């Protein structure tokens, strides 16, 4: 990885994201309060939490789709005021435009950026091949299985060369076998990219498989009054942040870490 860091131009480097005292919610109802979090460039940060814990809400705030009630979201030190192609998003399901073929879906971010036709076709085709869907370019999303659609979404989000990829339970709707295949594909693809990854899941094993660090959004995060003190430390409003030793290395026994996360949930 260090070799590619030296070779890569500055713009392709991962994005540093910082949440400063962020409160989030829909309407007047607050989901999360006083959230502080530093995400380092190029790291894979996984947010785990039960449904309703507000983990997708955090992602939407980083994407710029949801303005915080209080506090600031900073991308490379600049406050986030709206979405940007720097921060690509992968949604849980059905986020492909159903009237566009696989190829035209993957081309879309490049088209929006004004990349010339031939160039964006070449780039899109190479990404489609990268996620194992060569030959499916002219199919419509409805002709694809759920796993294949998520592969297309992955290709689409990475085709725009984002500096951060925000993934909102991208494999949550898949069966166990397909999900394992997608996780392998993601690890494989992430090896070649310097982008920062923020990945939301409710699956602890998925978190441990992918993460440099795991953020646990438990009940504690939603009740700042309950556990004020030592536990919160620098990460206010968040249960715990755990570093995964030797990340993304297979066959490492992580039962201890796993037990801690489950305890936090």
């Amino acid at each position, binding site marked *: 990885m260090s070799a590619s860091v030296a070779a890569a131009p500055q713009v392709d480097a991962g994005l540093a994201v910082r949440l400063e005292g962020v409160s989030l919610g829909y309407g007047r109802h607050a989901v999360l309060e006083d959230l502080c979090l530093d995400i380092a460039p190029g790291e894979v940060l996984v947010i785990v939490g039960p449904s309703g814990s507000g983990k997708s809400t955090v992602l939407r705030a980083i994407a710029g789709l949801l303005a915080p009630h209080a506090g600031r979201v900073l991308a490379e030190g600049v406050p986030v005021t709206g979405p940007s192609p720097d921060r690509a998003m992968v949604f849980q399901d059905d986020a492909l435009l159903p009237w566009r073929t696989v190829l035209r879906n993957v081309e879309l971010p490049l088209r929006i950026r004004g990349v010339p036709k031939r160039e964006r076709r070449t780039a899109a085709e190479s990404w489609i091949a990268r996620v194992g869907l060569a030959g499916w370019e002219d199919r419509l999303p409805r002709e694809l299985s759920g796993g294949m659609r998520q592969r297309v979404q992955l290709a689409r989000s990475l085709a725009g060369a984002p500096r951060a990829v925000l993934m909102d339970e991208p494999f949550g709707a898949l*069966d166990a076998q397909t999900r394992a295949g997608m996780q392998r594909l993601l690890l494989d693809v992430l090896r070649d990219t310097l982008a920062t990854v923020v990945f939301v899941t409710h699956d602890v094993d998925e978190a441990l498989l992918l993460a440099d660090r795991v953020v646990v959004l438990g009940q504690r995060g939603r009740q700042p009054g309950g556990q004020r003190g030592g536990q919160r430390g620098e990460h206010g409003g968040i249960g715990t942040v755990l570093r995964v030793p030797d990340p993304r290395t297979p066959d490492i026994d992580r039962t201890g870490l796993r037990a801690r996360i489950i305890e936090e949930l």
Partner: protein
Amino acid sequence: MSTPALEATIGSGAPAVESADAGTATGRTRTAAGLRRWAVRLASLAAVVAVWQWLTTADARVGLRFDRLPSPAEVAAELGRQLGTRIYYLDLAQSLIRILTGFALAAVAGIALGVLVARSRWAGDVLLPPVEVVRPIPAIALVPIAILVFPTDEQGIVFITFAAAFFPIMVSTRHAVRALPTLWEDAVRTMGGGRAHVLWNVVLPGTLPGVFGGLSVGMGVAWICVISAEMISGEFGVGYRTWHAYTVVDYPAVLVGMASIGVLGWVASASIELLGRRLTRWLPRGDRGAGGNVR
């Protein structure tokens, strides 16, 4: 029909391939079934004509008086005579030009306004109240106003047609835009897409199924109103000719006019449906209804 799509969602890829192959394998049986359905449709039309022929030639008086109604044979003879005249085609062309002009204007204005009032609260507050007040007025009731305001009859008739088609198109578009899932818009925005990108890549294609529902209804109402308007004012057109035939008590010609209106209206609606189905091929199989009126 929805089962293959469901399997494709759950399975890992192979099921999707299988369902695609299954689609072509059943192609032959599908055309056979299609032919049978067309035969049934034609037989249904023929049966109506046969009953009509029987009622009129038997001079039936069963509460209703069929003895003076022209028989299909008389109408066919009159149609044959009219097909040999220039005026018949001029009338058809005139009515078609009127309806296509009015309908095209209504489609553009209805879709534009429908999108605008659904996407902008401010535009909705400003534009909707007058529109909602005018909407319940039957377009044909606007004839006196049209005669007063427009310098020529021609413009008045096109205006009536426009007014008839405009409201169903506008209302359907408005509902379709409101019902659009926000997920697609979010996806395009996180790619850096602005308002124009969202409009062009999400709102317009995503609302097509609903918009075509409105276009279908709009085309039907437009026919009703163009014919009615021609009956009231106008010197050409199928509606005018039909009414003229009635004033000189030429019933076979009245029925030729009615049949012409029926066939033209049917062709127009079928064209809209066909176009709608072509443009919404991307819909999941189960959702593709006639006229594409889904969501």
